[in-house]
């Protein structure tokens, strides 16, 4: 009951925030001089990339917790998180490509940042394939936890290897300063907040589906006179 209320609340808030973000992006933020209108993609591109990382981090934590506690809820949250992460990574790849076409005059290039994004995508799609090929619930949860941990350990290594290559992909957010116009920064912040809330909503709803399924299965068992 209470959960349902929080969910509905989240949906409303994140929709509102998302609409605000879209408004700010198109009517408040200045149009970039060099790139023109395509630069607007940036406000989706970057938040999506961050949400993807956040998803994988959450999956990692859930993986560790599952192995320690053996509580299936961590598996459910972790896998939901990976699914969302894969969706966002896919969107990063797509938005990036759409952006790259006019700017770099190519859909794809073997730039390290792009390459690493693609590697992340591969790792977590492999996770989903693994998930699909194991049926027993405990076994699947354990393997997915291990995969989520190993995959996440890999993330910094993947990025490290990227830094060591020459790159045409811009590194904006350097260690301390951010070289970006204030209005753009505000827009980015709003957009970021909107995506964060959207991510949270998705995670809750997606894991709710699995929790419900689990409950249904248990109820069915009781009905069959098992439990």
């Amino acid at each position, binding site marked *: 009951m209470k959960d349902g209320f929080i969910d509905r609340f989240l949906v409303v808030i994140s929709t509102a925030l998302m609409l605000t973000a879209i408004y700010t992006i198109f009517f408040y933020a200045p149009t970039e001089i060099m790139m023109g209108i395509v630069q607007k993609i940036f406000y989706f591109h970057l938040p999506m990339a961050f949400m993807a990382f956040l998803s994988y981090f959450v999956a990692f934590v859930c993986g560790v917790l599952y*192995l320690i506690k053996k509580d299936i809820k961590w598996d459910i949250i972790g896998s939901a998180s990976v699914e969302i992460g894969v969706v966002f990574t896919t969107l990063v790849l797509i938005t990036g490509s759409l952006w790259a076409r006019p700017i770099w005059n190519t859909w794809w290039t073997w730039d390290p940042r792009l390459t690493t994004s693609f*590697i992340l995508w*591969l*790792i977590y*799609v*492999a996770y989903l*394939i*693994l998930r699909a*090929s*194991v049926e027993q619930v*405990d*076994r699947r949860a*354990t*393997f997915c*936890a*291990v*995969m989520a*941990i*190993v*995959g996440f*350990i*890999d993330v910094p*290594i*993947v990025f*490290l*290897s990227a830094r*060591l290559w020459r790159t045409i992909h811009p590194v904006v957010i350097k260690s301390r300063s951010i070289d970006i116009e204030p209005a753009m920064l505000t827009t980015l912040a709003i957009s970021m907040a909107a995506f964060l809330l959207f991510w949270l909503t998705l995670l809750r709803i997606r894991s709710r589906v699995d929790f419900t399924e689990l409950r249904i299965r248990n109820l069915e068992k009781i009905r069959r006179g098992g439990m």
Partner: protein
Amino acid sequence: MGLSLVILRKDLLIEIRRKDSVISMIFFGILLLFVMSMAIGIGRKVDPELASGILWISILFSSVLGLGRTFSLEKTNRCIDGLLISPVPPSSVFVAKTSVNFFFMLISEAVIIPVFFALHGDNITIGLAPLLATVLLLNLGFASVGTLFSGITAATRRNEVLLPLLLFPVITPLIAFTVKATGEIFAGVPFGEYSAWLRLMAAFGLIFSCAGYLLFDYVMKEN
């Protein structure tokens, strides 16, 4: 440690009896080397980095054959149940299987690399010591991640297929480091300029052999 040795000895005995793991790895590696050289190299000057890419793709894809084997061996007749009910700790199994895989890779590399030099040796400087270091570091990383994952995929229905699927995405950084390092070795660059790559490879190997050692417990119990 003693138990790892017992398992290691058994696996080697079985390999000596069947001879097929290492032979397939070697043959498949050479095959890949040829097919790729043919598809890519014909009428093209193969520079050091490209050559290094061809070499490692051949070695790594052929090594997967050996990897999958070490576990499917234990699944026939459910020998793995014999290990699971016994007092052998899963980590000993991990050490044994990683060593077996490391060793099989070494043997097959000892054949594939000379063949590679015969094919592409013209444009390439041969630095034996640094190459050996690269090989050993690569094998460490590959064998430990590979053993962990072959433990996972052995418990699924389609072991031989799923293994490369899981493995390659995760070891892409290792492949990238190795290709880079070897490319520079082949180009005859001084050690100082590529030692960073070797250090990264060592880090990768260490991190993942520890992760494998710790996680293997959970994996093996699910088999």
